[in-house]
């Protein structure tokens, strides 16, 4: 059953290594291109202001237990006061911001550019692999898999008795795709670690963030129960001072 196929060194030289090298280079190229193409958007003052307010509210929520109850309550009222509280946004305005976000031409162009720079190299490389490198056994993966993976991994190979460990070059492409992500995150620094799934998640969550953000923060702030976490602080300070003095 498990015939030991001897793979030609020519395969190794001309298929596997070039494919890996090309993928690494394309990744590096894409990183630099995305860096260059990042158009400097002049941030909208209103959006920045809202963002800062959200950050302040979040800090207040995080550090709520470290300030005395009265001052926490005073700050909370300042934020969520009905009339002139910072976080209180009348319903009409909230809708507006969201619509503005999507119809803003700059924003849409940016998102499209990011998407394209992700998808195009992958599509091109996949088409290249399919065109040139199909129909033969490319590599042997070191662990055995069940028969169900056969159709997935051995796409161009029409023999059904070949061991599932011998895969076609398409699966080698996918293996490279996933495996080089870790390598990219090491050599390219923190930012562009080829996180296409993360980008997509960011994209879907981006439009809603500023608009729902304010009311969400307000609700979060309302929920917080203040628990005074430093009740013994004065005793502690006294003990420290005593130690210093004596």
């Amino acid at each position, binding site marked *: 059953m498990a015939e030991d196929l001897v*793979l030609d060194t020519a395969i190794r030289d001309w298929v596997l290594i070039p494919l890996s090298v090309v993928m690494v280079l394309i990744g590096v190229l894409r990183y630099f291109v995305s860096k260059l193409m990042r158009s400097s958007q002049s941030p909208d003052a209103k959006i920045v202001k809202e963002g800062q307010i959200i950050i302040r509210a979040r800090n207040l929520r995080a550090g709520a237990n470290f300030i005395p109850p009265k001052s926490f309550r005073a700050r909370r009222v300042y934020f969520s006061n009905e009339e002139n509280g910072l976080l209180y946004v009348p319903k009409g305005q909230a809708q507006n911001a969201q619509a503005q976000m999507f119809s803003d031409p700059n924003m849409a162009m940016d998102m499209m550019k990011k998407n394209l720079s992700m998808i195009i190299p992958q599509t091109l490389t996949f088409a290249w692999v399919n065109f040139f490198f199909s129909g033969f056994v490319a*590599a042997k993966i*070191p*662990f055995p898999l069940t028969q169900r993976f056969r159709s997935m991994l051995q796409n161009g190979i029409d023999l059904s008795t070949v061991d599932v460990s011998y895969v076609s070059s398409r699966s080698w492409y996918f293996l490279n795709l*996933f*495996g080089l992500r*870790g390598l990219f*995150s090491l050599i390219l620094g923190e930012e562009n670690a080829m996180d296409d799934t993360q980008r997509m998640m960011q994209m879907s969550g981006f439009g809603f963030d500023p608009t729902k953000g304010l009311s969400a923060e307000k609700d979060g702030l309302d929920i917080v129960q203040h628990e005074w976490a430093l009740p013994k602080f004065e005793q502690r300070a006294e003990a420290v001072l005593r130690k210093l003095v004596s």
Partner: protein
Amino acid sequence: MAGLDDSGASEKKSGEAINDLPTFNAENMQNNMKIIYYSRTFMSIIGGVIAGILGFTGLTGFILYFLVMAITSVGLTAKAGFSIHSYFDCWNRIMLDGFLGGLMSFVLFWTYPLFPDLFCLFKK
């Protein structure tokens, strides 16, 4: 471990138990998590190459992967001076985080040395 540790940055103290209430500096905590991620990725790549050179196949290779991950955990714990709670908020972070993230890189680099005639010296 200092030689193998890819990231040169040192782990920063992210938590102090003031008045029995742990507070965490979020930025330092993030930095520490990044360090864990880099270390695991690097070690999984190295582990993959080792598994390939030694010619492991099948289950043995995966056992080696888990062994390498365990060694990484131990190494990170040692670098944190065994006082986990001042650098991370719970044990699970340093032990289990990113465990399976390096699996794909491991498999990729595991396949490389198994190419024919790449390491013909070792075949003899």
